[in-house]
């Protein structure tokens, strides 16, 4: 009970200047996070420098909940590379390995077929109707490094949004009631 009383007291005693300072500090933290994210996008050359593995199709190498670091260079796609791609019309990125590559003379146009390590069949069933190959513009990046388990935070927050709201609510309360 004493804790609730303290919280109510501290909310009542807020001064405008202090509130504004705290709001600006919060704004600075959010913008720095955004700057770091955009800088990462520039350095790695891809729109999503970090992705979370959502399915078990690359086990035992990548399990659900691992995060992958992506990098995209102008180097041509070669067999064996783990690529992250979007199928036309779907926005969930898929992380699989390129098993067949056919590169045209001169134009650099490339046809790529992918397959998940743990799947029995290749990905033709995942591509759009009538599509048999992936092209360069489908591929968002190559996986170059990974960290295990860290992605579970993102999976939990997207599958149970209530946890996201609780977390933001608690953070908001902490910011308002802290004395610095």
């Amino acid at each position, binding site marked *: 009970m004493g804790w609730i009383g303290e919280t109510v007291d501290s909310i009542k005693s807020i001064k405008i200047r202090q509130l504004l300072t705290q709001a600006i500090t919060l704004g600075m933290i959010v913008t720095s996070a955004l700057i770091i994210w955009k800088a990462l996008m520039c350095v790695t050359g891809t729109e999503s420098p970090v992705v979370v593995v959502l399915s078990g199709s690359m086990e035992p190498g*990548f399990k659900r909940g691992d995060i992958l670091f992506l990098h995209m260079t102008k180097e041509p796609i070669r067999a064996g590379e*783990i690529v992250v791609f979007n199928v036309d019309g779907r926005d969930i990125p898929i992380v699989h390995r390129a098993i067949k590559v*056919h590169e045209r003379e001169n134009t650099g146009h490339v046809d790529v077929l992918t397959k998940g390590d743990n799947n029995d069949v290749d990905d033709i069933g995942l591509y759009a109707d009538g599509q048999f190959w992936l092209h360069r513009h489908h591929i968002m990046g190559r996986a170059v490094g990974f960290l295990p388990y860290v992605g579970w935070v993102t999976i939990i927050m997207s599958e149970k949004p209530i946890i996201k709201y609780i977390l933001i609510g608690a953070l908001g309360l902490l910011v308002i009631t802290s004395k610095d």
Partner: protein
Amino acid sequence: MHSFGYRGNALLTFAVTILAFMCAIASFSDNFSNQTPSAQIQILNINWFQKQPHGNDEVSLTLNITADLQSLFTWNTKQVFAFVAAEYKTSKNSLNQVSLWDAIIPEKEHAKFWIQISNKYRFIDQGYNLRGKDFNLTLHWHVMPKTGKMFADKIVMSGYRLPDAYR
């Protein structure tokens, strides 16, 4: 300043920083391993070689693959993904890479192996250029770590040739 919340926060930040540092060091240590893998591939038999109804050549081979990939395993290795690809050039395509077989090697003990199989994935050309074609068989491997940077490399074996006529 000395409340439970502050101490908890400081502890958590410190723990996460140390964990991230350890992952980075573990990954960095992979640069110092001395890797001497070896492999040999023999084509035992061309099972059949046909032109498919839709116009593309397809060939089925039986391969004999011997490899020793034990030196690729470090303490930070979770698995090694090995695959054999046929690589060749045609007039239409400057490079074709077709994976014929792959395997996941989870432990060092399994990394020295001898296997005789027919191709796991279909060897189909884009077109009908395979008669009399010279091609390389390349053993690629991809070292997937417990944390950090992944390494990939390959051994190229050349001198293979497909027959001049369908059979």
